[in-house]
């Protein structure tokens, strides 16, 4: 009889395990996008609350359009040195460094050109070439002067961290999760992904990579842990004028919409800010320059490039974790090696 | 030679019995548990259990193979063959391993065999459908196998007791209970 009781108890315990771990998720509208966070495990609610507070803080500090932000103050003070706090200083410095690394294909000082296009506003327009040339003259973050605690923007320059802030925010959330001992969490900042640890069953996160030709479907899925995945593509935010499609990724060097033959560029790496900056840069560079950049850049990262001719290029590090079977459409998948 | 004829006859009878049992099984609503054609409770395992102890592993396997092939011929479809082969052989394999374990009675061996049988059937269903979906039925079928296994064991045990009374040549010696 005792034996059967023990048995019954064991079964009950096993069923109890199936009830699943704690889970907390939130949808937050911040940083000009919609942010979804899901945290699993003990104390998930507390971690989520702190994550939300951190995002609100970052939004307040890094938004260009919030006149009270530190970044707005910096832009207003262009032409002279402005004292900025360490976090913003470091982020601006990193952004300027990425601009230098990518040959100006990513540049936070492209802000006045973006304003001229007004992609995010109600009335986007195509600026004249003369206007774009005039504005492009003020672009070039190599001319930003970093001097210990102060940053000096040249006269006429304005910076916007929109191309790096979400990535940086995901870095901050990753640090928060690590500090709080979270073992399982996922974050989407308007499609910029960070997956922390593993799923609660110990398996890797399956990150679907959206198909730029058909956003309801996927190019494939990547199985990841502790990785940032960020895509830049022209297929989401665009407008049409006189039969021409203008999307929101601009080549900072010319001010024109970047038509490089790529439909989307996805970066998968261990640094959110870098991934955010590089996904834009790779898209602007185009296939050949992007591959050269990947081969020579000293920091490891992976990328998925979809061109407008049915090819999907993937770096060799993704060979074992990429699953193309979920793709609805036929693509030719080509793996890139460093050789 | 006489022994062989005796064994051969017994094998034939047991094969016929197994076939009859697997036909009889069709009357049981196994389809309610796993709604797939070809799934059976595994009552024919009574014969497997008996043959395994009474004749040994090799004759038992011969009977099983003959039963599966003939049964499929009667039903006339390939998936039925797949179901009975997967179920039958997995049950057989488990029981061959377990029937030598000292301390396990015919009930324990039968239950293990029934669990193996149902697992095999689910595996066959997964192969047939090319999907992992039938796996969802396995927990229920495993619980069911406790009962079918115990029933199989009981019938086999009764059979052995009866055989004891009509003790004929070739019956293995059995210690007093």
């Amino acid at each position: 009889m005792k034996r059967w009781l023990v048995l019954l108890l064991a079964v009950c315990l096993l069923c109890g395990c199936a009830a699943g771990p704690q889970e907390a998720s939130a949808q937050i509208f911040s940083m000009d996008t919609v942010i979804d966070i899901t945290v699993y495990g003990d104390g998930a609610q507390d971690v989520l609350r702190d994550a939300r507070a951190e995002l609100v803080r970052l939004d307040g500090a890094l938004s260009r359009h919030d006149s009270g932000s530190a970044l707005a103050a910096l832009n207003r003070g262009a032409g002279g040195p402005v004292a900025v706090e360490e976090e913003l200083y470091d982020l601006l410095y990193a952004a300027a460094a990425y601009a230098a690394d990518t040959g100006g294909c990513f540049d936070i000082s492209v802000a006045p050109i973006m304003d001229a296009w007004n992609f995010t506003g109600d009335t986007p327009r195509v600026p004249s070439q003369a206007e774009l040339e005039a504005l492009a003259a003020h672009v070039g973050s190599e001319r930003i002067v970093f001097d210990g605690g102060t940053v000096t923007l040249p006269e006429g320059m304005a910076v916007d961290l929109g191309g790096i802030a979400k990535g940086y925010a995901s870095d901050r959330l990753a640090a928060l999760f690590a500090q709080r001992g979270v073992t399982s969490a996922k974050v989407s900042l308007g499609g910029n992904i960070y997956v922390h640890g593993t799923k609660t069953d110990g398996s890797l996160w399956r990150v679907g990579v959206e198909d730029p030709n058909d956003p309801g479907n996927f190019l494939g899925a990547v199985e990841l842990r502790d990785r940032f995945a960020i895509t830049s593509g022209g297929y989401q935010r665009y407008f049409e004028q006189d039969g021409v499609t203008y999307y929101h990724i601009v080549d900072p060097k010319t001010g024109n919409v970047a038509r490089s033959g790529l439909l989307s560029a996805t970066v998968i790496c261990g640094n959110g800010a870098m991934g955010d900056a590089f996904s834009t840069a790779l898209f602007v560079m185009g296939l050949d320059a992007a591959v050269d950049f990947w081969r020579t850049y000293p920091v490891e990262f992976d990328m998925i490039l979809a061109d407008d001719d049915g090819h999907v290029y993937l770096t060799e590090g993704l060979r074992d974790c990429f699953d193309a079977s979920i793709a609805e459409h036929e693509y030719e998948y080509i793996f890139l090696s460093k050789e | 030679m006489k022994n062989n004829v005796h064994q051969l006859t017994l094998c034939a009878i047991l094969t016929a019995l197994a076939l009859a049992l697997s036909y009889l099984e069709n009357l049981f609503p196994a389809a309610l548990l796993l709604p797939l054609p070809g799934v059976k409770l595994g009552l024919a395992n009574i014969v497997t259990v008996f043959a395994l102890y009474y004749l040994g592993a090799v004759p038992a396997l011969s009977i099983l193979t003959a039963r599966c092939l003939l049964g499929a011929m009667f039903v006339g479809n390939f998936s039925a063959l797949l179901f009975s082969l997967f179920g039958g052989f997995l049950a057989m394999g488990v029981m061959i391993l377990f029937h030598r374990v000292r301390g396990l009675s015919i009930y324990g061996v039968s239950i293990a065999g029934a669990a193996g049988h149902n697992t095999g059937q689910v595996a066959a269903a997964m192969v047939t459908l090319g999907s992992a979906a039938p796996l969802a039925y396995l927990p229920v079928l495993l619980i069911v196998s406790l009962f079918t296994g115990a029933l199989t064991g009981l019938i086999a045990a009764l059979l052995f007791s009866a055989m004891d009374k009509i003790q004929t040549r070739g019956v293995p010696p059995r210690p007093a209970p």
Partner: protein
Amino acid sequence: MNTFSSQKNNAVPRLRPAPLDAVVVLAVLVLAAALFAAMLPKQSGGALACTVSRDGQVLDTFPVEENSPGERVYGAYTVSVAQDGAVSVTAAPCAGQDCVRTGAVRRAGQNIVCLPGRFVVELSGTDGDGSGVDIVVR
């Protein structure tokens, strides 16, 4: 030729339940429980569900099924379900129309967002073809 094994080597059956039998029963039960536990999340996930929310407040949740096309109106927004179960936003009040251009979503984890209106349509649960994606990079 004797094709049968010698009967002398055959095991002798124990005809009464033995203590060790309980171990077999336990093993089968544990296996069943473990399998059941492993499959629970999938079962509770159920079919594909669509959640419509505005400003973080859930307005509506409905199951997405094939062959039940229709339109649902939430203020100035219209959410359409196509014959094949694809969900799209077909009308929106904003100038950008990003959410309308996003097109149709079909799989769990995908969403359509109208940022100005803070209007979100998202799919959850399990999709029919089992892409099994946890999150989507876009």
